[in-house]
């Protein structure tokens, strides 16, 4: 098992009577690209600042490679941060910005110059050493901020929405660059974003947060395909959620019944007991439209939206529950035309269903 880089244990953070972090525990592995994802105000920045040392936690412990750090001042923690608005020092050159941390650590001038050069090369800004940081473009400032934070070779790099100030094109290019930087340096990255695409495309693992709590931790695939709660399923991408009761279960299959009485037989066992009231989740791209009577349930086509690359079909089950199905344009080739009001059947592979227990 890999070494644990940052171990957050039962962190609670109060601002007056407001609870910004409510019993957060996380184990972030060495050399991992770890992302904190959640809606605005859920406590991502607060958690990051607690790890960096800018916020004193009300309760709980933080370990950095086994060493307890929650009582250390920011400058005593071998952790660096890339701030959302870069916070480059305007009265210094790019070189001096990157050298700042190295100087404080008492490195020799020769070593500092060598490292600064390496860092500038790493972020492809070799020719910018003597420039001032004002009147640089957002992308350039971003790279300098990265170089400055990476130069002291921190054990962990924290990034608070570093891409949010960039335009779309640059943001997408920087995603790949960040991922590459993480792999090249081997430094553990903790990345904060409220953009699910960003999180999904870059991370080794994601912690989805809401209301000061961690909802679920997992790989992008687990988070997307195996959400454990309604919040996670709903927050990441488009989805179908149906409230159901477990009516029967055996070693090989489970029968879910919707509130309106529609039964869904799925050939998969469940850990839950008969009578449990849960929700089930199936992504629209996993819902297949078949002939009436041939699927797991019958439905009526109520709407079709064409988006170019994909189309979304909206259907109603017999109890009125809305189900969406997404087809890519390629899958649509040669499929027979369907009209609004047609009776159809819906189907999905048993393992694409996720049970949401909260």
């Amino acid at each position: 098992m890999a070494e644990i880089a940052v171990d957050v244990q039962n962190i609670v953070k109060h601002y007056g009577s407001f609870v910004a972090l409510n019993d957060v525990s996380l184990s972030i592995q060495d050399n991992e690209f770890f992302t904190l994802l959640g809606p605005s105000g859920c406590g991502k920045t607060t958690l990051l600042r607690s790890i960096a040392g800018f916020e004193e936690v009300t309760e709980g412990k933080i370990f950095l490679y086994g060493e307890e750090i929650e009582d250390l001042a920011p400058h005593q923690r071998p952790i660096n941060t890339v701030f959302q608005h870069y916070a480059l020092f305007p009265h210094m050159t790019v070189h001096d910005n990157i050298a700042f941390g190295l100087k404080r650590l008492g490195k020799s001038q020769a070593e500092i110059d060598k490292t600064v050069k390496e860092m500038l090369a790493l972020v492809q800004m070799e020719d910018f050493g003597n420039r001032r940081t004002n009147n640089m473009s957002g992308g350039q400032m971003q790279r300098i901020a990265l170089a400055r934070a990476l130069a002291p070779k921190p054990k962990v790099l924290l990034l608070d929405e570093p891409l949010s100030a960039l335009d779309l094109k640059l943001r997408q290019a920087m995603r790949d660059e960040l991922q590459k930087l993480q792999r090249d340096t081997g430094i553990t990255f903790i990345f904060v974003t409220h953009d699910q695409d960003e999180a999904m495309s870059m991370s080794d693992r994601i912690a989805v947060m809401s209301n000061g709590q961690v909802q679920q931790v997992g790989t992008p695939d687990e988070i997307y395909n195996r959400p454990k709660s309604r919040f996670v399923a709903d927050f990441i991408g488009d989805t179908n959620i149906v409230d159901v009761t477990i009516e029967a279960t055996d070693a090989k299959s489970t029968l879910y019944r919707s509130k309106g009485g529609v039964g869904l037989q799925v050939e998969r066992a469940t850990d839950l007991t008969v009578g449990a009231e849960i929700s089930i989740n199936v992504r629209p791209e996993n819902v297949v439209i078949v002939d009436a009577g041939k699927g797991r349930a019958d439905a009526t086509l109520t709407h079709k939206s064409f988006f170019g690359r994909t189309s979304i079909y909206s259907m109603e089950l017999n109890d009125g529950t809305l189900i969406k199905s997404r087809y890519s344009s390629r899958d649509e080739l040669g499929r027979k035309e369907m009209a609004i009001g047609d009776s159809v059947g819906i189907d999905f592979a048993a393992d694409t269903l996720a049970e949401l227990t909260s």
Partner: protein
Amino acid sequence: MSAPRKTKAKGAGNVAHFKSLYVLVGFFYAFLYFPIIVLVAYSFNTGTRAMVWKGFGIDWYVKVFTNGAILDAAKNSLLVGLIATILATTIATAGALALARGGAFRGKGVSMGVMTLPLIVPEIVTAVATLMFFSAIGLNLGLGNLIIAHTVFCIPFAFMPIRARLEGMDTYMEQAACDLYATEWQAFRYITLPMMMPGIIAGATLSFVISLDDFIISLMVSSAGTTTLPVYIYSMIRNGISPEVNAISTVLFGVSLALVTIYWIASKPRK
């Protein structure tokens, strides 16, 4: 089809439309600067009568710079201005830092008001109060008295530009420094202080100009031997306006102008 709606007259609401305003502005500048221009011009007059032009020359400047009494007064002014500026700027910097970076504390609003209150207290009131206070406690330090008085009234002038600069500065910079292994002192030394330097320079120049040009308080507090330049010029005028007064006034004006220019450049927000 209905008639096209009448569009609003172009530039309506722009006062530049009223040509007579230009005239008014012209009068304003004339009243403001004409006397100064005349004073500067006549300081280069070679004649002995203040307002009768004889010819161009720097005779009176030579006179000024060889006049022991004027030089003594100038020395006093510079010394008082310099020391008062250093003290006032230091105190103002500390005050601005406490108010902008010291977090919330009781009486923050009041401190703020107290810091800038001297700006609206009539100078004559301050002058009389200072004089009475000094004689009440029997303080008699010669130039020291002047330095203390000047320091006190310079503080708000030094404070304003420094605070304005600090307000515009994000604490993110200091946090970034601490994140990069700087102790709080190093973050202050290498980040906060250099970044607030334009404000400090602006505050210092402003204090120096204010101290250099101060008349009422200096008149009250100064005694024989501690006369400042404005007080000395005033005493010269009582014996009639001589071209010497024009020359020394022009020098004072020139120095003030240079300092205000520095202030203006330093306090301009940098992009």
